């Protein structure tokens, strides 16, 4: 692979279109498969009844919200290091999708909290740090929008994005470090998932669908960025 060949926005433009089309098809297929498993194959939860089915979007959306932030900050850092325009464009393209998944994680969590905890919102460590993540995305987009000179906007945004990465491990470990209402991780690197195999399969399929969706949308948006700033 000639990586630096594709570092030029003009050569990346057609490749981004191809990636977007493939990812969009995969996202649709994976989402249908995941929702089928989640709603028709996986059993009803013994404690929460049908309310638990929110998990199939809540957990994948929460994963995406954190993952997309790290990817966005990584592109911003690459942009700072190598001064490549495409890196900054990718960081810009990812921010709105990251903010969207953060909002979805908060929204679905809220609708899940009401029947299980008895409240839509509580200021505990997990929920609050996820809300901070939403404001970091907004801050990144607002800062870039408020600076007219493109290069300065990209650099300022990159610094904010990189500093904000501190919040990611805080979100991830919040349920361990503090005594929170939010439950611990259902799936972790150190032990087998603490849920039925079919529930886990449905969740992973939707997570992959969200992943493909994010790639498709980011590639479509980066094409707009390139077309607008040739």
């Amino acid at each position, binding site marked *: 692979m000639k990586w630096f060949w594709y570092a030029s926005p003009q050569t990346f433009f057609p490749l981004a279109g191809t990636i977007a089309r493939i990812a969009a098809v995969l996202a649709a297929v994976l989402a249908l498969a995941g929702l089928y498993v989640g709603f028709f194959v996986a059993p009803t939860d013994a404690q929460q009844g049908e309310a638990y089915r*929110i998990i199939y979007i809540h957990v994948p959306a929460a994963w995406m919200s954190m993952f997309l932030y790290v990817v966005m900050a990584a592109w911003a850092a690459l942009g700072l290091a190598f001064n490549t325009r495409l890196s900054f464009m990718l960081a810009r393209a990812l921010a709105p*999708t990251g903010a*969207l998944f953060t909002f979805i994680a908060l929204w679905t969590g809220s609708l*899940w909290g009401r029947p299980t905890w008895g409240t839509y919102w509580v200021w505990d460590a997990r929920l609050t740090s996820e809300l901070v993540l939403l404001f970091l995305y907004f801050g990144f987009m607002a800062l870039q929008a408020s600076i007219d000179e493109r290069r300065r906007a990209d650099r300022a945004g990159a610094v904010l994005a990189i500093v904000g990465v501190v919040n990611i491990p805080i979100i991830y470990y919040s349920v361990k470090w503090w005594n929170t209402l939010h439950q611990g991780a259902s799936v972790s690197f150190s032990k087998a998932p603490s849920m039925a195999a079919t529930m886990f399969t449905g969740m992973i399929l939707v997570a992959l669908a969200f992943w493909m969706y994010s790639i498709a949308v980011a590639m479509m*948006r980066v094409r707009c960025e390139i077309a607008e700033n040739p």
Partner: protein
Amino acid sequence: MKEFFAMGGYAFYVWGAYGVTFALLAVEVFLILKRKRETKT
């Protein structure tokens, strides 16, 4: 079928979560396609 949509009494929470999620994803795609059309002209 009716039972499926009732979600064991949790219809508001489950469909509220799924409905808003899909609506927002659709809006995002719509906005990008709109932006794409506007840049080309």
